[in-house]
Structures are given as structure tokens and as C-alpha cells.
């Protein structure tokens, strides 16, 4: 045979959108770690994924902007193109069985409407976050938050692929509120403050680490142990109410 001949690829007949969670210790997986895990799970679950053409065919999976390594999430999304039609609920069950615990399938639906990228990263999208700050008094966090919100803008430095850039933490915050945790926090610290916030997506998007850096810049907040952040939701943002809608609805 001719080794130069590219592989034929079968056409895409269905696109499924998968919402998944990164929980517990699996929050330490990177975006690339998750990609490998998902591709292997797809093989084990025998999901008929479509393949690209060429010498090194790869499964046709679109990854939306993923949560940074070390941050947990209840609301991550990928879109998988299939070459045979499948029942989304059965794909959900098969993938859930094939993925490691902590990388958990929340639901699978048939794709509709604008692309995942447009829904999640475009103008008008946002994320709801929950941050646990062990060792930080809720009153201390509340004061730091008030100081940050009082500023017209709070710039923090961020390393990106193309060098260093600055993001405005203040401008990206839509809502933020502080409460006290009712359980003991990791690390055996008794006190633990909770920060819930909704952040507007941008280029680049403001992340929990940026908000913590902003609290440090604005009020000198310095948590004694690394806070644990979780993305609770992401999707179309209602600027009036500060709520994040279901991106798969």
C-alpha cells in the first residue's frame, strides 16, 4: 500500500455535548490530562467518535476553555462528534463508567444552537465560583472584598502564552458575597471563609487566582493555606440579576 495515502474519514452524523465535573483530587489534572483521560474513556466505552483525516487521525472532540489546574469544577464542557448516532443518556452512562472517579459525567445532550465556544467564551458569558479560604476569618475576607469593590479598577499581572498581561479583577466581578463555612476545612484549620462570586468572561478571563491576587493588592489579604476554588456554573450571563444560565438549554 502507499504509506502516503491519508486515511478516509467517515462523516459526522451527530454531535453530543458533555457536561463534566472535576472533583476532589482530580482537580489537579490539567486540561491535557483530562483530554487523554477522555479519549481513553471514549475508546473503552466504544463510543463511535468521528476521526479527522490524515496521517495521524485524531478523535473529533472540541474542548471549551477549561478550568485551570488545581481548581475544581461542576461545569466543564466538551463536544464530541460521532460517526454513528447514539442515545445521549447511554453515552453518559458508558462514559461515566469508563472515566476515573472524580472526573464525573454530569449529563450528555445533543448539540443545538451556537457553538460551545460562542456560548461559553463569547461576550455575555460568565462563571459562578465558590472559594474556600481555610484559616481566613469571614470578617477579614469581607473587609478585603469591600476594599476591592471600592476601587474603580484593580489590575493584577498574569502570565499568558504570549507573555505577561494585566487583567482588571474589579471590572470582571459581577457579584461577590462572603459567608462562613460550617465544617472544618482541609489542613485542619478551624476557621474558613467562603467567597461566592460571579465573574464576567473576557480575553483573558479573570480566574479565582486573579481575584485572590486582587484581594491581596487591594487589602493585603494573604491566606495561610492555598484556598480551594470550584467553578459552580458557566454559561450566558444575566448582567441584571448576576445569574449564569444553563449553556446546554
Amino acid at each position: 500500500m502507499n504509506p502516503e495515502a491519508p486515511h478516509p474519514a467517515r462523516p459526522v452524523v451527530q454531535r453530543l455535548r458533555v457536561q463534566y465535573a472535576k472533583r476532589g483530587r482530580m482537580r489537579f489534572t490539567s486540561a491535557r490530562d483530562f483530554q487523554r483521560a477522555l479519549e481513553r474513556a471514549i475508546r473503552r466505552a466504544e463510543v463511535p467518535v468521528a476521526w479527522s483525516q490524515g496521517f495521524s487521525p485524531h478523535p473529533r472532540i472540541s474542548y471549551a476553555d477549561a478550568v485551570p489546574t488545581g481548581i475544581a469544577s461542576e461545569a466543564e464542557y466538551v463536544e464530541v462528534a460521532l460517526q454513528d448516532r447514539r442515545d445521549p443518556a447511554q453515552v453518559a452512562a458508558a462514559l461515566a463508567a469508563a472515566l476515573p472517579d472524580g472526573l464525573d459525567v454530569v449529563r450528555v445532550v445533543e448539540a443545538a444552537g451556537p457553538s460551545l465556544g460562542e456560548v461559553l467564551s463569547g461576550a455575555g458569558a460568565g462563571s459562578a465560583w465558590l472559594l474556600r479560604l481555610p484559616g481566613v476569618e469571614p470578617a477579614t475576607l469581607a473587609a478585603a472584598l469591600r476594599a476591592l469593590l471600592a476601587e474603580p479598577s484593580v489590575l493584577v499581572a498574569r502570565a499568558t502564552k504570549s507573555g505577561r498581561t494585566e487583567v482588571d479583577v474589579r471590572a470582571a466581578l459581577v457579584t461577590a458575597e462572603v459567608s462562613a463555612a460550617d465544617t472544618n476545612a482541609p489542613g485542619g484549620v478551624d476557621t474558613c471563609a467562603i467567597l461566592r462570586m460571579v465573574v464576567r468572561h473576557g480575553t483573558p478571563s479573570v480566574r479565582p487566582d486573579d481575584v485572590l491576587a486582587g484581594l491581596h493588592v487591594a487589602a493585603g489579604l494573604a491566606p495561610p493555606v492555598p484556598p480551594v476554588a470550584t467553578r459552580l456554573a458557566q454559561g450566558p450571563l444575566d448582567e441584571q440579576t448576576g445569574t449564569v444560565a444553563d449553556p446546554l438549554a
Partner: protein
Amino acid sequence: MDSLFAALEPLLPRVRKPVQYVGGELNAVVKPWGEDATTVRWALMYPDAYEVGLPNQGLQILYEVLNEQADTLAERTYAVWPDLEALMREHGVPQLTVDAHRPVRAFDLLGVSFATELGYTNLLTALDLAGIPLRAVDRDETHPVVVAGGHAAFNPEPVAEFVDAAVLGDGEQIVTAITTVVRDWKRSGRPGGRTELLARLAAGGGVYVPQFYDVSYLPDGRLGAVTPNRPGVPARVHKHTVADLDAWPYPAKPLVPLAETVHERFSVEIFRGCTRGCRFCQAGMITRPVRERSITTVGAMVQTGLEASGFAEVGLLSLSSADHSEIGEMATDLADRYQGSNTSLSLPSTRVDAFNVTLANELSRNGRRSGLTFAPEGGSERIRKVINKMVTEEDLIRTVTTAYAAGWRQVKLYFMCGLPTETDEDVLQIAALAREVIRAGRQASGRRDIRCTVSIGGFVPKPHTPFQWAGQLDHEQTDARLQLLREEIRADRDHAKAIGLRYHDGKPGIIEGLLSRGDRRVAAVVRAAWEDGARFDGWSEHFRYDRWAAAAQRALAGTGVDLDWYTTRERTHDEVLPWDHLDAGLDKQWLWESWQDALDPDAPDIQDCRWNPCYFCGVCPSLGSSIDIGPTGRRLLPLTPVPGSLDGFAPS
């Protein structure tokens, strides 16, 4: 024993690649801690970074074999990088397993697999972080029994002070035997403490317990004798050989890492051992005799391994995979089975032989043909005869011509520098060979964009090989020869652009040489280097020659021997070697004659005993083992879809 993950977790956001410390891989096993009196618990360590250690076949096999047993549990632990080590020390977090994050200190046994001697300092870090005394004699019965295995354990003397025991050879069966001894001792109330347990392990000659042997030295610094110092301890310790690999089809549930590792594939060992007789090759000497897995066992292992892992690549492992008696059928049948499934198949090591290209063509028939690797090992015909690597230049040119003509664009060639009797001329011949490869390749393919990469490793003489007596080439001469070769390749501008040259400087090889053929006095060097900060010595960004040289000078002061004595010095026939009491089955006189034959240009070649008469290396009669090869004449049938899989779902 509770998980200490909560103590580790706050440190993880502050280190590189934290995912390597969290466990939770597909097919990882967490068993209940069990009853103290009856449960035997193993912590299995690969003393290098997770990304190197996780794919290790040996450790995965033992992990699975042990966890299949009732009242036995095995968890894994790897070397932590210096960033996490510093945080663990600061916060008092001990060395933990990745499976259940239990402290290594709490296990009954710590099994350490040494694929290379450069992992020794990482063992010391792990012991220290675990809270286990570095010296075996300072431990009590609450500490794990530290057992070394792997190829480097065939001369464990440089770490004899730090390990309680060493095991030679195949681990599948001996781990269970050790487990039984430990369980019986625990059940009967730990009679006689740690010493009694070690004595029970040592009694059969299947486990080496260094503290039960005394070493004496001659006035000139050479070894006098190694003798047991306790009744019931045999004078020699023998290696272990699994007779029937088909009876041990592991790994069946390969660990699938979340982190990126050095091998992202499912590997099946298609046979163990090699009898081609390359004189430099320790692996080929200590893993004899050849024992094949049958084509049907390999087919079944590939199927279950892929189903259990979701890997997209299969590696057919061995020391020389094209030598399997059914490799042609295996390649064709596996390529047929997985056609259209985007599963790639590969042979990691290839001999210089046109048949290998045919095999590689078959295995890659559905994929891209990027690069093929061959190992002529020596640049000149003369030096290849010295090492008994019987490849002619004609063989090599015919092989690469076949490869380039079949569409392969890149050929990699492995060589060694510093082989016994080697001259500059032998090494410069590598340049001439590479040019000839490019010339033949351009002609065969009709293209100018083909490439040849020359990769050169420094030769390190290893125990239990005919070259165990050889003087190692010093690093200055190694570097000078490589420099000459570099200039020679560059001199021909038309070909130089198509030839890549990869090599390392000679210094790390000298330290590897010290650790490979060292005796018990070298333990002090290992400890001094470690105390001075030596970690991850197999990584060029961490290895520092000056630190090791200084440690050797300090630690060997007053002994009358030094770094050169251990490395560049040629040994004599009558010298007691530090590993003479460790029996790999090889007849020392046969090794010596093979060494003498290497130095004699008129000596006959060694012909592989799989297809030629026995050449009396000694392994089969002394260990009661025998060659186990096919062909079985069987073939692999196509796989049929399993009912109930997603393929059976009705379209919506």
C-alpha cells in the same frame, strides 16, 4: 491506617505537576488496611519520577500479582521532586503511597525496583522522608523490610548498607514466597524480631540479606572474600526464573496514568531473555534463558489490556522482539485485528535485519511511517566483532535501503562509545556509516529529505557480563572521541545536514560505572553525595559530576581505592568481584573465556543457542531452567463485537 492526603493536599498547589502525586489512576487498587497479624502490606517504589516510574512493567506486574492475593495489599510510591520534598520537610509530611496516601513507614515491606543505579540517591530521600533509618542495621521490627529488585540488584553492594534484602531475577513468584514468610512470622507473634525474619528470608538462598555476609579486603584494596556470618545462611544466592510466561499473563489491568508519562501505551512482554551473546549487554546475560509468550497469550493480553485501559498504542516488548519464533504471524494477525480502529502497534527495539523492516511495515500499515531504530552498537566491523554484535555494513545498508524504499523517512542508529579495545578510528567509522546510509537512502527513496539520527551512549561495564573485567574509558577520552566524530560528520557538508548526532558527555557514565561495579565501600560515596544534595541523578538537569567526584574523594579517603580504581581499572582473572556470591546462573569461567575471545581477533563468534548448539554459558544446568520457545503454529482470529457494548445500541 488512614489516608494522609489532607496533609499533602495543601502543598500540591505549590508544586509542579501536582497530578503525579494524587493517585486515582484507572486500575489502581485500594484495599482495606486489614488485620495487623495476618495482612502483609507492600509499598512498591520505583525510585524515579512518577512519569518514568508509572509505566514500568516490573512494578505493575508485582502490584497486580500481590493485590490479587487475599490478606495482601500493595500500594505504589515514587520519588518526589525537590520542590515537594522541601515542602514535605517543612510541613512534616512523610513519604506516602499514591494509592491511599498511607505512610510508607507503616508498611511491612518496601520493595524498590532498580532499573538503573542512578536511582540510589532517590531511595535515600524516600527512606529519610518516610522516617526509616537509612542503615538497615539501625532499623527495628516496626520498620518496613527494604527489598531491592530489578537489574541493578544483581550487584546491590553499593546499597547493601541501606537495604535489608535483595532479590535477583523474575519477581512474579518470589514476592509471594516472601509474603508468606512475613505472614507466618507475624502470625506467630514476630519471634526473634527483625533478625529472625531476615534469617528466615535468607535461609533458602532465594533472598540476599547483605548484613549476613562479611566482606574482607586485601592490603591492595581488592576484595578478599565474602562469607556468611550466620549459621543457615548459604554461601551463594541464586536468581529467580519464571519457567512459563504463559502462566503469568501480567499486567492484565494496566495502570492508566492521568499525568503524562514517558510511555503512553499498553506494553506486552512477548518474551523474556536473550541469548545472542552481545558482550556488553547485562540484560541479555542476566535474564536467560529465552522464554516466549505464545502468540495466543500475546493476542489475549493485547485484547484485555486495551479493553481495560483505552490505550491507543500497543508495544510488543522484549530485548529483541523480531527474534520471537512467531513474530511474523503475530504482526500480521494483530494488524488485521486492529485495522480501522486507530490502534497503533510498535516494536520498540529492532535488530539490523531487513526482516525487521518487513515487520515494521506490517505493524504500521494503517499509520504513519516516521522513524525506525536500529542498533549496530559499534561503528566498525572490528569493534562489532569485539562485542559479538554480528552485523556487517552490507546488512545495515540493505536494511536501511529497504526501510527508506518502503516510505520510512527517518532512521535512528544507536551506537556506543568507549567499548573495550576501541580506538578513535572505530568511532570515526560511525560517520562513514551514517553517510553511506544517507547516500543509499536518497537513492532508494528518490528524495533528499530523508534523515539519519546517530545516537551514542557511553559504554559502562556491567556485572555478570564478559566485560565485567574491562577498564572503562575515562570521560576525557570519551568526550574527545565524540568531538572528533562530530567534526568528521560536519566535514562532509552535503550529508551533514541529513545526519543528526545525539550524545551525552562522558561524566555521568563514570558515576554509573562506579555504582555498577562498586562494592560496599561505595555506600559511603552514595550517602555523601546524597547528603550534599544528589537527587534524580539520571536527569542531566539534576546530575552534578563534581558533587559525586568530591563525595568519592571524601568517602573513600583512607581506603586505598578511588573513583578511577572502580571505573577505569581493568580487573584480573583471579580477582574476587563484589557480586561473585550472587548467582545469575552464568559460569564465571565462560564469562572469562568470552572476555578473552573479545580480545582475540581470530576467536569464533557466539551463535545464538536458540538455533545453534548450546555454548555452555551455564544458566540452564545451574538453575534447572530451559529455553521455552515456539512456534506453536497457532493464529489469532478476528475479534467479534461483544454483545451489550455500545455498538449494540439502537440508533435514536
